[in-house]
């Protein structure tokens, strides 16, 4: 089908997919190194930042390197971390506060800032545009152009196709954006990155990738309870028995706090609902005492890539490179990925700039990127924390946590052992009959809420008359396989209520996909036990419109 369409073509030196920390840093670095390069970024969100979501405690190391004068330039790093607290939550009202000396070293946050990644992204985009980068939000990269085993660029998504796939009035076909090098910075589980990793066998020599789902809300709280710069991390309740993960509460500026829960997607019980765990979590006394009397102002969710070095695929292929979480550069021990994503983007940019400086035609592998990455502090960090996730997966929050303390604080990450977790997250799901149903408390409308009022706060919208962007390889699987065996977990792992099992007119179960609610978190693409759901981009500009997540 694609061959028949006449497409407009634009050519660039370097094309970047995704205006996140990795892509924007890459763009800035390219123009800093070689101002004459033509650099273009396409971004599926309706504006830069609309799809960015992160905690975020931000380590400024990469930013210091990219813009040493970021302070003068007004980068939105306004709240330095003043105090760190780490808790093991053992019940709704119980917790153990960890003495500072026992906190694994990477979890200390001196010198870091509490930020909104959305705001940082917007600021980086301004810098990039000033340097002459062309940024096009509202245009999704639909697919890579691969010719003779070389990535030549991307095709943007079509606009104006109805729900049956027929062109509507004003239909606009996709456009070809070709480049000497294409850098994919789509974030966790990027749909093109996923295809390239598979087709080019980039993950052949590494462990399966591991993921978590992060859920986050911004609250405006009572000024008397607000302590700008306070960072609280937690592990344990409510996830003790049913799954693992971690939680956070960060005090931003203007009486705002960010509260969130990350649930590891290798959880076994298909009855687990990350959304409801998050809602329940906010009732913990240590958290509720800040939120009570406050007002929730936004909600969002995004999957994170957290397999670390053991799962890091080969980052280059002919004509292209994976940067940031599209590859998986997050440091799970620090629970931070923005600084390493930025660094990977900058290193890929330097390699591309160098390759093109000598009149290179591109299309080859940017091996200079891989080499530079291996010699960088980002790699050193990932090496030091390589066992962190696997320890927690194998030994649980407490024993694994203790082992991590020993490895991080005694061995400084250079312990003489390697741990691997070779079960993909989706395969960790157990049949429903082996698991207990979880009885979640009803939301109280004060601290906890239902899913639809939450999605409402993500400002999510999609054109309704377009093809569903959540593709089922075999449409019969949800009802015939997933429902009897796993009680169709999509109903629960989706943080936006996209998937429902409803009764049709004859009282038979029917799988319903409310794609317009989708917040683009990619969890379904990761966690479906049958790997039957493929996330593809909807019409550009759709999805959440986060303002400062």
């Amino acid at each position, binding site marked *: 089908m694609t061959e028949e369409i006449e497409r*407009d073509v*634009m050519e660039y030196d370097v094309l970047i997919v995704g205006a996140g920390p990795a892509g924007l840093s890459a763009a800035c670095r390219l123009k800093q190194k070689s101002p004459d390069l033509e650099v273009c970024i396409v971004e599926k969100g*309706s*504006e830069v*930042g*609309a799809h960015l979501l992160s905690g975020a405690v931000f380590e400024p190391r990469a930013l210091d390197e990219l813009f040493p004068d970021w302070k003068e330039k007004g980068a939105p790093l306004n709240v330095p971390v003043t105090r760190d607290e780490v808790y093991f939550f053992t019940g709704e009202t119980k917790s153990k506060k960890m003495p500072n000396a026992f906190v694994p070293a990477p979890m200390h946050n001196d010198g870091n800032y509490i930020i*909104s990644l*959305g*705001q940082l992204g*917007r600021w980086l985009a301004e810098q990039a545009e000033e340097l002459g980068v*062309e940024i*096009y939000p*509202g*245009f999704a990269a639909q697919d890579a152009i691969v010719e003779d085993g070389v990535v030549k660029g991307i095709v*943007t998504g079509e*606009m*104006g196709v109805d729900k049956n796939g027929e062109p509507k*009035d*004003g*239909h*606009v076909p996709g*456009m070809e954006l070709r480049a000497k090098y294409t850098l994919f910075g789509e974030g966790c589980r990027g749909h093109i990155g996923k295809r390239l990793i598979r087709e080019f066998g980039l993950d052949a020599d590494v462990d399966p990738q591991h993921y978590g789902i992060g859920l986050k809300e911004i609250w*405006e709280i009572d000024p008397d309870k607000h302590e700008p710069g306070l960072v609280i991390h937690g592990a344990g309740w409510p996830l003790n028995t049913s799954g693992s993960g971690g939680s956070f509460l960060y005090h931003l500026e203007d*009486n705002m706090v960010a509260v969130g829960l990350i649930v590891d997607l290798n959880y076994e019980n298909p009855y687990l609902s990350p959304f409801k765990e998050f809602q329940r979590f906010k009732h913990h006394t240590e958290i509720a005492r800040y939120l009570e009397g406050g007002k929730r*102002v936004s909600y969002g969710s995004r999957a994170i890539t957290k397999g670390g070095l053991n799962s890091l695929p080969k980052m280059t292929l002919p004509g292209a490179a994976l940067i940031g979480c599209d590859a998986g550069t997050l440091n799970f021990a620090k629970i931070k990925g923005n600084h390493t994503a930025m660094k990977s983007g900058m290193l890929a940019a330097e390699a591309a700039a160098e390759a093109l400086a000598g009149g290179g035609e591109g299309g080859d592998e940017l091996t200079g990127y891989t080499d530079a990455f291996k010699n960088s502090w980002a790699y050193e960090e990932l090496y030091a924390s390589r066992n962190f996730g696997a320890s927690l997966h194998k030994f649980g929050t407490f024993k694994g946590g203790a082992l991590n303390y020993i490895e991080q604080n005694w061995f400084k990450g250079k312990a003489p052992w390697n741990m691997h977790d070779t079960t993909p997250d989706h395969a960790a799901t157990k049949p429903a009959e082996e698991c207990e149903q979880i009885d979640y408390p009803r939301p109280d*409308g004060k601290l906890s809420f239902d899913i639809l009022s939450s999605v*409402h*706060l993500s*400002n*999510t*919208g999609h054109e309704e008359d377009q093809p569903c962007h959540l593709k089922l390889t075999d449409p019969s699987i949800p009802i015939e396989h997933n429902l009897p065996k796993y009680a169709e977990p999509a109903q629960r792992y989706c943080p936006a209520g996209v998937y429902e099992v409803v009764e049709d007119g004859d009282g038979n179960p029917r799988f319903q996909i409310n794609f317009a609610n989708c917040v683009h978190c990619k969890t379904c693409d990761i966690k479906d036990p049958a790997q039957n759901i493929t996330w593809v981009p909807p019409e550009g500009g759709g999805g959440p*419109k986060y*303002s*400062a997540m």
Partner: protein
Amino acid sequence: MKVLVSVKRAIDYNVRIQIKPDGSGVVENGVKHSMNPFDEIAVEQAMRWKEAGTAEEVVAVTIGPDAAKEQLRSALAFGCDRAIHIKTDEPVQPLTAARVFEAIAQKEEPKVFMMGKQAIDDDSNQTGQMTSALLEWPQATFASEIELSGETAKVTREIDAGLETLEVDLPAVITADLRLNEPRYLKLPDIMKAKKKPIEDMSLDDLGVEAAARLETLKTTPPPTREAGVRVESVDELVAKLKEKGLV
């Protein structure tokens, strides 16, 4: 024929509006802004005239902060030939906007001044009418169909009782209603081209307009939250409950 079309930067319709804690207005910082949807319809109409050969030149105009350039770039990506940006960081009330548009219309001398019927931020629905009064031009508001023929325009308006058709002499101010057309998707090459089209910068002073605020906002409050409903078992119970609340 020249067409002038006004566009306003407004908070995107997808965004859930948050009220500032002190009630002085709504939160605008970091919130996605877009071109007011009714203005998109107005721009689309102007483009259709241009493509049909009825209009030779289409000029977009906005009043607002630096960031409003984004919306002018969108208008240029639709196909407008050039744009005028009257820069101000002050909130612009309808009469100020109308005075600015009066001055711009006198300078540009368009045959048609297209506007959205109202902006979705303050829903004032006054600027078109005021502009026409200041210019002493005819006005045709809430247009759902426009036929241009030489020196007149036949405009179908959506009114409470149905549709009303007016004929106005040109030049005139015409404001667009929802069903006038469906704006197009912007194409990437057009967005690229729009970056190179000229935008003329002006200030309120250049036009001799004062930003005097005639309206004072006393307080902004969110709409009352809906109280939780109750489930009733029977019609009788429903009637009893309604009576209890004094609703029947």
